């Protein structure tokens, strides 16, 4: 009898597991490579409630997979801290949808002299930091100088600043030894462009008290509390200079590296906004009535980078071209990106200033790839090492190696961790193909430093005058002239096949129907989201 009962129990459990596994497949985070038919229609922004008026009150919870290593102003060189203090510290400048640098909340306008050696920022008048310190040109100077001293990301561009001339309380002139377009981009970025109270910055602090003492800005929120690697909380600034703003009472940023748990937290209502989600999850969330979209004004191109060893098979341009013709980029983007990703044919997308419409895409053509290999002396194919890092997408990696294998290019995979991949890229170089797991080129010209600067991508194929061309590009004041030079560099990379682009993506985010006017990355990465105007309908 006991044995019978036990047997029945086992069968019941096994049966229930079997039946549950045969149900409707839920969305998984393991994308397939089968193409979809049409790109997903991005749901329109959540409808506003009756009367179309933003509502006051509520707490916005945002879950990110980025770490919260510390909280503090950029001027305190907190690792990866700048993004997490956006609610408190406002920007000098912004970047518009076309990538142009425009006035921001703290510097509504700016001028650049015709020779590019003077950048004059016209600051917003009559506003104070939350500790009562007036926001003036002196505050900007203190912040920028401190950023440079502490080698904050983006501060290398300040090396060209010979002096900070305070013309009056609301006008500061940066006198440069040489024009550098990156400097304007950095001032429009979340790093050196954020301005904290100089009074607060001068307060003696310890690592435990730095967040509370130094995170003082002009923004719509005030720092409340934080736990490293866990969360940071902000509360409404009742004296914010924009009247009637912000709408929210509180804003909380939480970190969680596990996407499955993040999705469950979002679906259960613990958070109204999550980011860096997978396309397949974005589709599922959309079907559930949530709003998903890619970051406006921000996209990244990923590319394969052949080595520059003259003895390598990749020294032959035909082999490099063969690699590009072997990749079915459209199918990869459809299968993995589910319509959210795009196919790049050059190292710029149509909305980038450097895009050259005259460059013909190298469309998928495995036969041509094989022919090129045969012409290069590899009729039976060849084997190449591909080094990539563990953080990259495995499905894309699988697709790339598969397509290459079908054209006779066999890949020997070398998976490196974060430390080694960085050393490979910047110091030791690599053999074969380098495939970065992280984002590469973006419509932000500053990201080109990944490939353009001498200290990065050390083994990339470059013409002898590459560095001179690069220096000339970033020293060009006129936007059109600069874009012409950018196009020229894109053309060189295309002709030399020194970078083989295969994917253009943009960070995907999701919000529920309660969240409105988030404005994520609408002003480039300088303004991650519009803290002042975002509101909740519940």
């Amino acid at each position: 009898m006991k044995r019978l009962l036990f047997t029945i129990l086992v069968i019941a459990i096994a049966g229930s597991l079997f039946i549950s596994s045969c149900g409707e497949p839920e969305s998984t985070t393991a994308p397939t490579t089968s193409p979809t038919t049409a790109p997903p229609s991005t749901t329109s922004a959540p409808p506003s409630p009756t009367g179309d008026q933003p509502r006051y009150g509520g707490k916005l919870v945002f879950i990110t997979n980025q770490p919260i290593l510390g909280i503090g102003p950029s001027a305190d060189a907190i690792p990866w801290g700048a993004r997490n203090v956006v609610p408190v510290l406002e920007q000098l400048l912004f970047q518009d949808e076309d990538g142009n640098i425009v006035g921001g909340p703290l510097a509504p306008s700016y001028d650049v002299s015709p020779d590019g050696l003077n950048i004059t920022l016209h600051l917003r008048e009559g506003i104070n930091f939350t500790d009562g310190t007036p926001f003036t040109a002196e505050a900007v100077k203190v912040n920028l100088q401190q950023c440079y001293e502490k080698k904050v990301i983006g501060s290398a561009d300040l090396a060209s600043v010979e002096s900070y001339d305070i013309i009056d309380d609301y006008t500061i002139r940066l006198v440069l030894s040489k024009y550098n377009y990156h400097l304007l981009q950095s001032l429009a970025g979340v790093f050196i462009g954020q301005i904290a109270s100089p009074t607060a910055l001068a307060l003696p602090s310890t690592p435990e008290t730095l967040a509370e003492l130094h995170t003082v800005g002009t923004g719509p929120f005030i720092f409340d509390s934080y736990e490293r690697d866990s969360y940071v909380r902000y509360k409404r600034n009742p004296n914010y200079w924009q009247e009637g703003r912000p709408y929210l009472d509180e804003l909380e940023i939480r970190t969680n590296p596990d996407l499955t748990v993040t999705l469950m937290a979002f679906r259960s209502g613990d958070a109204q906004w999550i980011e860096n989600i997978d396309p397949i999850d974005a589709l599922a969330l959309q079907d559930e009535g949530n709003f998903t979209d890619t970051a406006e004004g921000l996209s990244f191109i990923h590319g394969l980078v052949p080595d520059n060893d003259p003895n390598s098979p990749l020294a032959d341009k035909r082999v490099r071209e063969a690699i590009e013709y072997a990749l079915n980029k459209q199918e990869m983007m459809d299968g993995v990106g589910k319509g959210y990703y795009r196919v790049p044919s050059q190292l710029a997308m149509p909305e980038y200033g450097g895009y050259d419409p005259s460059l013909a895409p190298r469309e998928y053509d495995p036969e041509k790839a094989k022919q090129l290999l045969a012409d290069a002396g590899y009729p039976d194919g060849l084997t190449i090492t591909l080094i990539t890092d563990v953080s990259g997408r495995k499905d894309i990696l699988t697709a790339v190696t598969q397509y290459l294998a079908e054209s006779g290019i066999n890949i020997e995979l070398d998976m490196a961790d974060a430390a080694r991949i960085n050393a490979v890229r910047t110091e030791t170089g690599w053999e074969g193909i380098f495939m970065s797991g992280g984002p590469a080129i973006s419509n932000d010209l500053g990201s080109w430093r990944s490939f353009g600067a001498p200290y990065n991508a050390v083994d990339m194929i470059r013409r002898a005058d590459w560095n001179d061309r690069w220096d000339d590009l970033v020293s060009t004041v006129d936007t059109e002239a600069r874009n012409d030079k950018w196009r020229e560099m894109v053309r060189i990379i295309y002709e030399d096949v020194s970078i083989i682009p295969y994917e253009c993506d943009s960070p995907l985010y999701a919000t529920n129907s309660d969240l409105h006017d988030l404005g994520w990355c609408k002003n480039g990465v300088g303004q991650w989201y519009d803290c002042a105007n975002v509101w909740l309908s519940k």
Partner: protein
Amino acid sequence: MTTFIVRRLLICLLIIILVSIMVFLVMRLLPGDPLMLYVSRNEFGDLKPEQIEELRHRFGLDQTYPEQYFNWIKGIFKGDFGLSLYYELNVAILIKQRLPVTIYLGVLSLILSSIVGIAAGTICALRRGKWIDTIVTFLANIGITVPSFWVAIILIYLLAYKAGLLPVYGYTSPFTDFWLSLRQIIMPVICLSLFPIAAVCRQTRASMLEVIQQDYVRTAWAKGLGERTIIMRHTLKNAMIPVITAIGLHVAVIFGGSVLIEQIFNIPGIGRLMTQALFQQDFPVVQSGALIIAMFVVVTNLIVDISYGWLDPKIRYD
């Protein structure tokens, strides 16, 4: 007994030193330069070689391995565990913030697993062959085999997402908000306790079965003593020696399991700290964290060994 304790302490010290050397060497044998990671995170790309050497000196990476090791050990005695490359913070501060969280989680798990495991094992032994024994043993076997991270996801799905009874993840100090802390800690503690409960239950059952067959227990039954008296006074203590050993070993299991659980539930404990430090090749954090965990494990096992003398006066260490 004193001699035994001193001898064991010396052995513990030796074990800790060996563990520290092993961790120290393994981290440095990993490919890649952690300084390059640090450099790439900041605006150091255009530094001159002498400036990079200055950074290397700041983090103590320009010294020989023996120098680095001895300087690190010397610093520990002064409370200086080194400077984290990833957090750019003194490691002692990080450990001070994170260790209490893991200890809190671990102690709760240990208490839960001990109480539930011993109780379940005792019941199984006393009701051997009955339906309760069958079910509990079956559940214990599942508890031994099922991965804790899988259970974590299932619990989150059922209790937090579907039922909405508990928060999905997170950690709040009990001193900040006790009830929120309690609700947030339930699932992580259950996940962390599953394996120890199952193992302790099985061990207790086996141990109790052996003891209750002894002559003196049969005599106690024959004398007409109550079940509770027989269990609590005559049986349990004698059966506990192997169980206490098992519980002591589970301290290491709980520390190891906390890595995954803290990651899933986003608990800022030392397990999560170690995971991130490992991926970033943050030597000082990994070394110091491993050292502290090793200390906990050896001290716990020492306490377990000493407790044998209390449990069974026949066991004396002279």
